[in-house]
């Protein structure tokens, strides 16, 4: 009785994406980003979009590719330090930017998926992040009211997935992917390995298939490393 969420490829998976939409994209830095979906957005020249993503990629990879083509109207992120073109577009006013604390970003996506329209957090109180937001004290400590985030499409990347849309991520490539999967009106999951429903241990799934509308096996993952740090043997 399991659902069948598999689509043939990234072209089909992105059916319905349009200019001006809001997208969520999983990943932290270049780790766990939906490389196939990003490439397809670039190929289709979808523009005027709002992207909710912790980072903005680097100049020539990840969301940096969309930035380079001026496809992004607005970014909602927490840290964009690895991208010169981003900083240039932002400082020149070409790009709208909403920078928000990383924990609030994660929680706002989860809230969007979980039907929680708003919640209070201490993060950002007393800073410009709090401007225009309600402040309320709980247990003697000031908190600000943050609202849920949702998206027309959420693009997530997992390690393994099954035909019912259940997902398992690998290591720190998990990051924002599970919350964004929850918050997409249409959530598109690309996976490195796609297996029949029933092959994944039901007790060990990170994202239940109910949050995923379309799934496909991604190709040609580059998985670029931003900071290759090593230690010497011995």
């Amino acid at each position: 009785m399991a659902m069948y969420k598999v689509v043939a490829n990234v072209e089909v998976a992105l059916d319905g994406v349009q200019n001006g939409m809001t997208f969520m994209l999983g990943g932290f830095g270049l780790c766990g980003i939906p490389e196939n979906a990003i490439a397809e957005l670039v190929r289709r020249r979808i523009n005027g979009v709002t992207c909710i993503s912790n980072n903005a990629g680097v100049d020539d990879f990840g969301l940096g590719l969309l930035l380079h083509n001026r496809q992004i109207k607005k970014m909602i992120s927490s840290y964009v330090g690895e991208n010169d073109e981003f900083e240039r577009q932002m400082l020149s006013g070409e790009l709208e930017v909403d920078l928000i604390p990383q924990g609030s970003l994660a929680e706002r996506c989860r809230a969007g998926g979980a039907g929680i329209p708003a919640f209070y957090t201490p993060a950002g109180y007393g800073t410009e992040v709090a401007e225009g937001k309600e402040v309320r004290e709980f247990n003697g400590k000031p908190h600000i009211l943050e609202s849920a985030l949702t998206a027309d499409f959420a693009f997530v990347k997992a390690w393994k997935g099954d035909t019912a849309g259940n997902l398992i991520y690998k290591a720190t490539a998990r990051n924002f992917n599970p919350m964004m999967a929850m918050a997409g009106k249409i959530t598109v999951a690309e996976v490195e390995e796609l297996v029949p429903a029933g092959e994944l241990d039901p007790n060990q799934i990170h994202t239940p298939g109910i949050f995923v509308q379309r799934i496909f096996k991604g190709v040609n993952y580059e998985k670029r490393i931003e900071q290759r740090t090593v230690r010497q043997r011995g």
Partner: protein
Amino acid sequence: MALNKTQIAQRIAREVKDGQYVNLGIGIPTLVANYIPDGINVEFQSENGILGMGPFPFEGEEDADLINAGKQTVTLEKGAVLFDSATSFAMIRGQHVQLTILGAMEVSERGDIANWKIPGRMVKGMGGAMDLVASADNIIVAMMHANKAGESKILKECTLPLTGVNCVKKIVTDLAVLDVLPQGGFKLIERAPGVSVEEIKNATQGKLTIEGDIPEMVF
């Protein structure tokens, strides 16, 4: 002589208590992991989803799917656990991570910190810093006492956009260890080897309390 970055990290490492979960920011704080005293068990949290973060991998063993919050390839200690960003910040916001060590551009007398933005010039974003400073019970800042022009970064009031208010508990700079007093103002705790109290006084714009003899750090 003023401390170098390694020495700042070494000095901060002495503040870490047995059994603590610790979040280390990018830069000098990352080095603290190398100097935890023997017999002190701590676990390092990386806000992108690791508890029990280990050292860099051996060459050839890097895994693109296993990085820290500074986007560096890392490894896992025994007993480590991986999780998503919402769970990570649940740990932070819920005060389960007891100690946060991070860098700063400015700190004020009442423990305000600025470290994420220079208007019109540098905007990298706050990342997880705002959640961390709004939450951790203990926040230690690693920073230079003054900027390259010799201007103090230990201030009466921060001039840059704030990351958090009333949160920094201790500062370790190249010149000194300072406590931020609950009622506001800094208290000189230790001085770098060969650095005089006068020197520190001159390099500190915020109100500085000096009581009795100020010991010199020993390395």
